[in-house]
């Protein structure tokens, strides 16, 4: 038995090579800390913190899009932006767009989640199809919508005429009355699925025992929905309202591609306004001021979010 133990001790240990020395070095607490945290931290600082601080600084200067010269103007940019009657209109359009989009997405997204969470034939096919729009780049969704909504050749006009719902082709995105509504619809075609995915995850997290217990207690289908499903979705719905609200308020790409803010500015929301100020009016300083105001609003929403939902709880921070 003793020989057996000695045999086990016999494994030859190689002398430490360069690789071993390197591994030892990387294993030191401070080195490992730097190695793991510095890349993400520096990206964060360089790509988010610095530009934001830079922009806040820029908002007190007059800057042209053509020359990098900064001229200190103090609060002048803010005065101009806040006294521009268009700015208020632009904000209210953003709010209209965000509210409409979020509510529509919430209803459609939750509805689809509830529908495909049932068991039925071809359930997996339905699930797969429903997820597809989320995988398509937003710009591509917009190009596809432009084609389908085309006033001359668009399939939507053709189908509606054939169905007898309209008499002649409509320029959907060219109509000041319809443009915003259409953008909201197109936008929701893609982004309702975001809500579906979140709600679905939550729905599947509800133990079936809850429903079985309710059935045993004699609860009807509606009562089960009201007393079990809905309360369980509350948290998700709050997150959706807030996150989607923030993103939709600041949505740029889909609106910019579909209408460019037109016709006659009816779809010029806050981010479009900021963009146009920067790159159509070449007033970067003023655009920076608009951006700064938007940061402020974002921070308020973030504070609200953190008040309800402490992210550090999810990552078990000591």
């Amino acid at each position, binding site marked *: 038995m003793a020989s057996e133990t000695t045999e086990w001790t016999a494994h030859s240990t190689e002398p430490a090579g360069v690789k071993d020395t390197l591994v030892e070095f*990387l294993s030191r607490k401070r080195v490992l800390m730097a190695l793991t945290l510095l890349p993400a931290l520096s990206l964060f600082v360089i790509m988010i913190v610095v530009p934001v601080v830079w922009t806040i600084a820029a908002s007190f200067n007059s800057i042209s899009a053509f020359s990098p010269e900064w001229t200190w103007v103090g609060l002048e940019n803010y005065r101009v932006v806040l006294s521009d009657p268009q700015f208020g209109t632009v904000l209210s359009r953003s709010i209209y767009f965000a509210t409409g989009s979020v509510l529509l997405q919430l209803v459609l997204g939750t509805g689809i989640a509830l529908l495909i969470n049932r068991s039925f034939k071809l359930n997996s096919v339905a699930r797969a199809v429903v997820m597809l729009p989320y995988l398509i780049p937003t710009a591509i969704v917009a190009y596809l919508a432009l084609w389908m909504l085309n006033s001359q050749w668009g399939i939507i006009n053709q189908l509606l005429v054939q169905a007898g719902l309209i008499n002649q082709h409509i320029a959907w995105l060219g109509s000041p009355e319809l443009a915003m509504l259409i953008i909201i619809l197109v936008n929701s075609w893609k982004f309702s699925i975001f809500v579906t995915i979140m709600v679905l995850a939550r729905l599947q997290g509800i133990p079936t025992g809850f429903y079985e217990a309710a059935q045993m207690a004699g609860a009807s289908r509606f009562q089960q929905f009201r007393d079990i499903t809905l309360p369980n979705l509350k948290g998700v719905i709050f997150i959706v309202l807030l996150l989607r609200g923030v993103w939709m308020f600041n949505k740029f790409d889909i609106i910019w591609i579909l209408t460019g803010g037109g016709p006659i500015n009816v779809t010029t929301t806050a981010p479009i306004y900021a963009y146009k100020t920067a790159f159509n009016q070449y007033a970067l300083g003023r655009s920076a001021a608009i951006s700064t105001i938007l940061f402020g609003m974002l921070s308020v929403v973030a504070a609200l979010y953190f008040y309800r939902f402490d992210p550090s709880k999810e990552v078990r921070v000591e």
Partner: protein
Amino acid sequence: MSSGHSNDDGEEQSLFSAMTSYQTRGKAYTGFLNLLTLGAVLLIAFPLFWMFSTALRPDAALYTTPSSLIPETVSFEQFRTLFTNTDFPTYLLNSIILAAGVVGLTTTAATLGGYGLTRIDIPHKKFFARTIIFGYMFPPILLAIPMFIFWRKLGMINSYPGLILAVTATSLPFSLWMMWKFFQTVPKSLEESAMMAGAPRFRAFYEIALPMAKPGMIAVAVFSYAIAWNAYTLPTVLMSDSSKWPLTVGIQAFLQTDAISWGALMAANAIAVIPSFLFVFFLQKYLLRGFRAGGVK
């Protein structure tokens, strides 16, 4: 209704009819829901169908009303035009470079960072958690204008490394969050056991923790790919040189210059969409695990 010998026929009758009506009502209800589901699926699928249907017909069949839903003759003419007569190949290549850069950078930084945040004792983790989520909330347009102002100062406008860094800023916060949460599902004792067996900490990290984190890394890679492939706002603002545009921006130029037909445009769309479908199809099982651990999105 176990005893079928009730004397009171009437009561039995009414009970029975109540039951059937409940059943038919249940059936009608299910049928209604199935119909709704079908409607939703059609509403979602039709635009995609129309995209492929347009892309696969020759120019001559594009501008006819009423259009046939299914192309009468399937033709790859549009794809040929796209690759031979336009800058599409350049845009495609640019998109691939952008995606590769962003995926590489994001996955590396998020994996390392997620490990560090999970395993290394550092102060202010609560602050980091909030900062990451706040960064996640930042919409691209609110980063694009600041970056333009800053990038111009650094002379990084129209530079690909600059664009890759910029897009990474939008993909990193959530990726970091996912990896932070993912590493917490990897038992610490696995690494500790490796250390007890004689492995230095870094070796325990790359030999034990890293392979365990693979589903999370794949989810992050696909997520950051989607962000990069999606990117429109940042390249629009940061890249003025048309030879450096990715697909999303390049296709818009086709529109504005009327350079190509709608058919070719839809062919371009189709090509832009297909890789995402394939990724998700083949990596589904990893994605579910990775995203489940990541929460939020």
